[in-house]
Each structure stands twice: as structure tokens, then as C-alpha cells.
């Protein structure tokens, strides 16, 4: 299929996804299940990755910014801005694509090849709406929270490891993360994460929903979903950064 054909089918699928649910109560129940499965279950991964990245950025900056003209507190400032502006929204979205995106693609793909999606259609249920809408809504809902959590953990990671390794004093670090702080950047990045949440859930859902074949094709679709979502996240990041900042 050509790129245009995929794009057309993706938007046609979104049309089916965002249509009127048959029984709202069933969709609401599914939404909470998805928030737990896709969001709450990602908290641990976000905390671990962000803490380590925050710590590593702090160490790298401390060891490499050795010019006496550069104040030490800039290490904290650079770590903060890296986390707020890019890592916690964009890079974390790409990492979440590997977890959430591949999960969505393989789950829907398996449901397709085992005829569970056909089974829903035969019952008269809009399978795209029932299966995909709660996932997209759940991921969009949790992404800003994961973003805030990621920023917090990254900063704490730097605060713990930097002074512990003797790379920077806690006072310099804390001074740096407070210096020239622009709250607007946090709001805008949280806003960006909403768009990334939409991509991270809807693109893999598209690849999973239209799988044809068996286990091999489900695996291949999952891989394609992750690659394409990551590229789209970066493209969208470029566009949003240009527009918003």
C-alpha cells in the first residue's frame, strides 16, 4: 500500500473510532481498564528511566562543563530544561511507543487474526470504537501526568546522584533548577504531550487493527507501528516546537 492509501485508511479508521458508542457505560468501564493497563502500569518505567537520565545528564554536564567562566548552577538549569523541553515529553513518548504502542498493536493484531474483532462486528458492535477509543482517550489522559512525573523524577535523580558523586553541590544544583524558570515551558510541553499521546495510541492501533495473516504478521505490524509512530512523533515535535515556542 502507498503512503497515501495508509493515510486515507488511517483517517477513515479514526472516523469509525470517534463515532457514537452503543453503550456508554461499557466504554467508560473499558476506559478505566485502559488507564490502568496503559497508564498506571507505565509509571514504574517512567520513574526509573527519568531518574537515571536526570542523573546521567547531571553527571555528564558536571564533568564536561569545566570552564571556570561557566557557573556550576548551570548544570541544574541545563538538566531542568532538557527534561522539561524535550526528554520528558518527546523522548519519553518515543520510549512509551515501545511499551504502549507495541502493546496496542499486538493486542489488536492478535484480536484480528483470532477473529475476535469479526466477532464484535457480527454482534453489531463498532469494534474500532469499542476497542480503540478507550485506548486513545486513556493515553491522552495519562500522558501529561507521566510528563510531570518524568520531569520530577529526572530532577530528583540529578539531585541525588550529582552531590553523591561529588560532581556538583546540592545548593548549586537546586539554585540551577530554580534559575530563570519559565512555567510556560512546562504548560506547553504538557500540551505537546497530549498530541504525542494521540499518536502513540492511534498509529499502533491502526497497524494492529488491519493486520492480515498470523503471528508473524502481528509481530511485523507491531514493529512497523513502533517505527512509524517514532518518526511521526519527531515530525510532530518539530512542527509543534516551531509553532508553540
Amino acid at each position, binding site marked *: 500500500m502507498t503512503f497515501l492509501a495508509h493515510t486515507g485508511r488511517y483517517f477513515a479508521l479514526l472516523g469509525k473510532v470517534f463515532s457514537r458508542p452503543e453503550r456508554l457505560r461499557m466504554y467508560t468501564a473499558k476506559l478505566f481498564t485502559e488507564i490502568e493497563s496503559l497508564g498506571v502500569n507505565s509509571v514504574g518505567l517512567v520513574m526509573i528511566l527519568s531518574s537515571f537520565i536526570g542523573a546521567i545528564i547531571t553527571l555528564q554536564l558536571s564533568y564536561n562543563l569545566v570552564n571556570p567562566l561557566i557557573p556550576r548552577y548551570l548544570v541544574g538549569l541545563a538538566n531542568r530544561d532538557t527534561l522539561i523541553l524535550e526528554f520528558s515529553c518527546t523522548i519519553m513518548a518515543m520510549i512509551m511507543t515501545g511499551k504502549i504502542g507495541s502493546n496496542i498493536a499486538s493486542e489488536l493484531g492478535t484480536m484480528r487474526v483470532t477473529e475476535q474483532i469479526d*466477532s464484535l462486528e*457480527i*454482534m453489531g458492535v463498532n469494534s474500532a470504537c469499542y476497542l480503540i477509543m478507550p485506548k486513545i482517550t486513556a493515553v491522552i489522559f495519562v500522558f501529561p501526568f507521566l510528563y510531570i512525573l518524568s520531569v520530577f523524577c529526572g530532577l530528583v535523580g540529578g539531585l541525588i546522584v550529582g552531590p553523591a558523586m561529588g560532581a556538583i553541590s546540592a545548593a548549586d544544583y537546586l539554585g540551577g533548577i530554580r534559575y530563570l524558570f519559565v512555567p510556560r515551558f512546562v504548560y506547553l510541553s504538557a500540551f505537546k504531550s497530549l498530541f504525542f499521546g494521540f499518536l502513540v495510541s492511534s498509529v499502533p492501533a491502526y497497524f494492529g487493527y488491519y493486520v492480515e495473516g498470523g503471528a508473524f504478521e502481528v509481530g511485523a505490524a507491531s514493529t512497523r507501528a513502533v517505527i512509524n509512530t517514532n518518526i511521526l512523533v519527531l515530525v510532530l515535535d518539530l512542527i509543534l516546537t516551531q509553532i508553540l515556542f
Partner: protein
Amino acid sequence: MVRVENLYKSFDGKTVLNNITAEFSQGQTNLIIGKSGSGKTVLLKSIVGLHEVDSGRIFYGERDFTGMSSRERKLLRREIGMVFQGGALFDSLTVAENVRFPLDMFTTQTATEKQKRIDFCLDRVNIARDVQRLSPAEISGGMQKRVAIARAIVLNPPYLFCDEPNSGLDPETAKVIDTLIYGITTEFNITTIVNTHDMNSVMEIGDKILFISEGQVEWTGNKTEILYAGNRKLQEFVFANHQYRQLRDDKRSGI
């Protein structure tokens, strides 16, 4: 009653259904038989609308399914129960939740009423109460098929479709499934269409049989007539198993 007229369907230029016309009667088990790759599953899935036909018409009673809007089709599909080849039970739900799903989605029954209906349907397919809380992965293939039948009949559908309900089952379990489908069909007076290549099923429950080969209807009849049919392709299909050649010869010689 379900009627199809002049159905054509092709995939990538290859014709799979070629001018299929047939009628499936109410209160009878209507079998679509044929070799693997003959177009049985495509025909069944076309009748329920999972495949769009290239041309031709499909009638549920007097209602023209092919001329319906997607909304009208969705409404009609609530009158259809379908048992898929692999059962197609939802992995994330338990046995009871699988059967309850259509009730939750389409009825306003109370929890007690729903549970009564679930118990009735699962009892009807001989699934013990303690199995209700298990997940589909924890039960055997035969049980999965029976749960799929229970789910298919939970809304009292007037139409039941079964795609290879016996595939992958041992002969004894297959007979149980056949008997169940036959029993449900006569008991609830529904139009049942079963897709199979299992000759045991044909001889067990074949009230009305449609034999298709290479996408075309080759023969129609019933389980008594099938042994004496003159169609060469049908004979090759039926007598691939020597047991049925013997059965025919025995009947002819009055044994």
C-alpha cells in the same frame, strides 16, 4: 430464512464465489460443504457482511441485506449469532463475561436477569457452573466452542452461523457440538447455517446441504440423498472416506 442470489466475490482478480444462488431454511441445519479452498468461509462471511460481495443479493427473510445502510446492517446483526472456527472468545474476559457481553451491550436487563440467562445458555451447552469464572485459555477447545455457541445464542438470535465448528476437535467432541447445534436449531426454530468439510457432521445434522466447489454450487440436497448423488465432484468429496462408500453399498444391498 436466508436467501442469496447470484453472489460474486473475487480477491485480487481471482474469483472465489461465482454466481452462488441458494436458500437456507428456518428450523433446519443448513450445511455448506466443500473442500478446503472451495469458498465456503468466504460465502459464510459474505452472507453476514464480513466480506462485501462484488455483486448479487442477500436476503434475511424479506429484508435485502445488500441494500442496507451500515446502521441498518448493525441493527440486523444483533439478530445474528456466529460461532467462529477458533471460537473467537475474548481473551481478556472470563467465560461468564464472554456470554454476558452481548447482554451488557444490547439489553437493559438487571444483573440477576443477566446471570439467569448466562446460566441458562451455559447449562444448555453443558458447561458446568464452576467453569464460568475461568478464562478461555484455561478451558479445552471443545469447551471453548460450546461457550462460543452459548454466547452466540444468548440474545435469542433468529439466525445462527457456524464456521467449521468441529475443526480441531476429536470425533466424540465434534459429535457433541453437532448434536448441540442441531438441538438448538430445532428447539428455538432458528435458521442455522454451518460451514463444514466434516462428513460425519454432514451425515449427523445435514437437513439441507449445499455443496460448493471452486466457488460454484455443484449440488444441493440432504443427508440421505448425498450418498446417491451423481455429481462427480461431490462423489470424490464424500467417498474420500471409504466408510461412506461402504455405507452406500450397504444401503443399496439392503444390509
